[in-house]
């Protein structure tokens, strides 16, 4: 359990060093996202080009990854983001992370740039840098199949053509659809001439208390299965959310000019395209679809951002766009947001045919499809779009008014946050930019949660009204901390307390799981402290890159344009109330008025480095 190694690979010098993360650091950060930000803060200088050889790319498994613990399939990929210029970090499922641990490694830190296309071959205790000329140019599934053909039953994390071509929102992919999707980390792979990390291991993970482990895991499974959400996730998956958000009037539509779209993308229509439900390693929820059009998905994100947001109604078309993004290695959230943005800019005359090379419009599947291919190959207008939100400079200041992004990161999920104020604060303050997976306080929509349960989880004074600003810093603070902790452990957020249900894995369960796997005795408060530490260091990383209070904001449209349709009609974010809410969030987090980690805390955390 605790003897997995840290591999440091310098691609420029073709040198590999195998070492180990000291136990005191594991105790402070556990693993996954936590240890990744520890190393990133230590090793990345603030003025570097994210696509230059000085950037540091980290693949880090969670503390519990690859064990019997339910849904312990996760790893985090981290680097300075080429899309935003701040923290780049993305969490991913599949089978790769468990395999990396079976090969003897917790974490790989990749430095420099290879002279020619390369891949890392990680097998029981060894890491080799190998040539990847014959794999360069292949799509994400094809390259993984090629590795399996050449090297046997390996698992691989790869970049697609988009990553090779340095598209600033290229993702890292493993399996058909699992993605470390956000922040352009696939482009960081491409910039290092690194096509893949390929691994195969035969080493088991020693468990400190195996019998106790069986017992706790059985108990946990029963507990998780007692929630009604588990079987629904396992039979319908996240597409159910599309129907919910749409009925409510909270689905980003046509670049958030509208907030509701067609029923043709509802879960029961998606179901007609489902071949079967599948899962990641150690998962018993199985929330993902294999579709009949030759890919996996769509998730809620794809339905919303490649469907409603682009004005596309036909489910088969949305699934095809989803499959194309997956094969090219493009992040679906950024792809759907950037395309919708330029479609609206074209409608408004902010960009013209001369720049775009053709007429841009919503609802045109063939146009969207051809633009995705062009982006991935940086052809024509695709070369411009591949620069993502940086295009504000090219398109002009006015274009920013229509951009649905925070800190340069296009919003991750299709949820229009103007109605739910806690959701809005969450995307404004998330450490990697506009993102729901950092802190979405889903229990906000558990409107029937008894008051005492709500107060036990979030603290006193949080109202039952999602449109109220009162005490909404508390659900965001709670969620931020616990999601950071679960990312350090390598467990899927779908079974994290507060993400989908109040009955999922909370600090008490985490404590038991840490103990039976490693023998370490953590108190619940100490696990929460790991999450807080991670968030503070992520903020310190961003501060170094120039992030201040003015960046913790929302797209202009969320403030100034009331939602036009359905239940959410008329709701928007009030600037003054939002500002007060932000101040309260900083206060509860212990940051100063400008949203910076206080000096004494910085000293305390830097002493760990």
């Amino acid at each position, binding site marked *: 359990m605790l003897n997995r190694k840290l591999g440091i690979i310098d691609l420029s010098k073709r040198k590999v060093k195998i070492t180990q993360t000291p136990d005191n650091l594991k105790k402070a950060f556990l693993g996954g996202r936590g240890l990744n930000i520890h190393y990133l803060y230590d090793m990345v200088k603030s003025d570097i080009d994210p696509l230059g050889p000085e950037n540091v790319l980290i693949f880090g498994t969670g503390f519990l990854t690859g064990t019997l613990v339910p849904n312990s399939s996760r790893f985090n990929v981290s680097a300075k983001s080429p899309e935003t210029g701040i923290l780049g970090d993305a969490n991913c499922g599949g089978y790769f992370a468990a395999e990396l641990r079976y090969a003897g490694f917790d974490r790989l830190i990749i430095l420099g740039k290879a002279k020619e296309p390369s891949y890392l071959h990680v097998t029981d205790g060894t890491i080799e840098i190998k040539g990847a000329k014959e794999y360069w140019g292949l799509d994400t599934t094809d390259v993984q199949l090629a590795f399996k053909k050449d090297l046997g039953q390996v698992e691989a994390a790869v970049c697609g053509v988009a990553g090779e071509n340095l598209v600033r929102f290229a993702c890292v992919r493993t399996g058909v659809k699992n993605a470390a999707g956000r922040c352009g980390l696939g482009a960081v792979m491409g910039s290092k001439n690194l096509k893949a990390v390929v691994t195969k291991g035969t080493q088991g993970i020693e468990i400190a208390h195996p019998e106790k482990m069986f017992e706790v895991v059985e108990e946990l499974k029963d507990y998780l299965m007692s929630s009604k959400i588990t079987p629904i996730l396992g039979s319908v998956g996240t597409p159910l959310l599309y129907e919910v958000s749409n009925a409510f009037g909270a689905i980003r539509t046509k670049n958030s000019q509208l907030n509701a779209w067609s029923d043709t993308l509802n879960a029961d229509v998606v179901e007609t395209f489902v071949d079967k439900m599948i899962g990641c390693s150690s998962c018993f929820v199985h929330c993902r679809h294999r579709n009949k059009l030759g890919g996996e998905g769509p*998730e809620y994100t794809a339905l919303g951002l490649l469907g409603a947001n682009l004005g596309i109604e036909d489910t088969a078309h949305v699934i095809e766009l989803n499959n194309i993004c997956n094969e090219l290695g493009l992040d679906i959230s950024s792809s759907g947001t950037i395309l919708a943005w330029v479609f609206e800019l074209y409608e408004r005359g902010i960009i013209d045919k001369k720049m775009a090379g053709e007429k841009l419009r919503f609802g045109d599947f063939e146009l969207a499809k051809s633009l995705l291919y062009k982006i991935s190959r940086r052809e024509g207008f695709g070369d411009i779009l591949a620069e993502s939100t940086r295009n504000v400079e090219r398109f002009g200041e006015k274009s920013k008014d229509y951009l649905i992004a925070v800190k340069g990161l296009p919003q991750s999920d299709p949820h229009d946050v103007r109605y739910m104020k806690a959701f809005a604060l969450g995307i404004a303050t998330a450490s990697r930019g506009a993102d729901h997976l950092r802190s979405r306080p889903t229990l906000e929509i558990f*409107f029937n*949660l008894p008051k005492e349960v709500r107060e036990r989880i979030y603290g006193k004074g949080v109202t039952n009204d999602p449109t109220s600003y009162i005490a909404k810093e508390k659900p965001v603070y709670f969620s931020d901390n616990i999601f950071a902790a679960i990312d350090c452990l390598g467990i899927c957020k*779908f079974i994290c307390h507060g993400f989908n249900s109040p009955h999922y894995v909370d600090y008490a369960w985490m404590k038991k799981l840490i103990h039976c796997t490693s023998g370490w005795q953590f108190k619940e408060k100490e696990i929460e402290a790991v999450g807080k530490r991670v968030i503070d260091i992520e903020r310190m990383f961003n501060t170094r890159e120039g992030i201040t209070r003015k960046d913790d904001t929302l797209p202009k449209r969320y403030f100034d344009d009331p939602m036009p349709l359905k*239940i959410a009609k008329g709701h928007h974010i009030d600037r003054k109330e939002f500002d007060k809410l932000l101040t309260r969030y900083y206060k509860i987090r212990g940051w100063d008025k400008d949203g910076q980690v206080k000096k004494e805390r910085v000293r305390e955390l830097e002493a760990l480095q």
Partner: protein
Amino acid sequence: MKLAIELTKPFSDAVGKRELEVDFDGRSVEELLQHMTEKYPKLRKEIYGETGEVTEYVIVFVNDKPISALDGTDTGLKNGDKLLFFFPISGG
């Protein structure tokens, strides 16, 4: 009074429709839930837990607010109100 009710999964599956026009002479959401579960018995297990309490897996909106922000199941209803039933779920 006439109420317009929109249902999403799994409530729509239990009723067999996504939209209902309900003619109802009760007063509150609680009475409406009783009325609906009598008319559509399959809805019962989606709305009530084993102890007969309304489960936490149903969210009911009356116009633009969830009943939790109003008076819970005691929330009063009036002619022309629009209601939405949905299941709380999150994801990416």
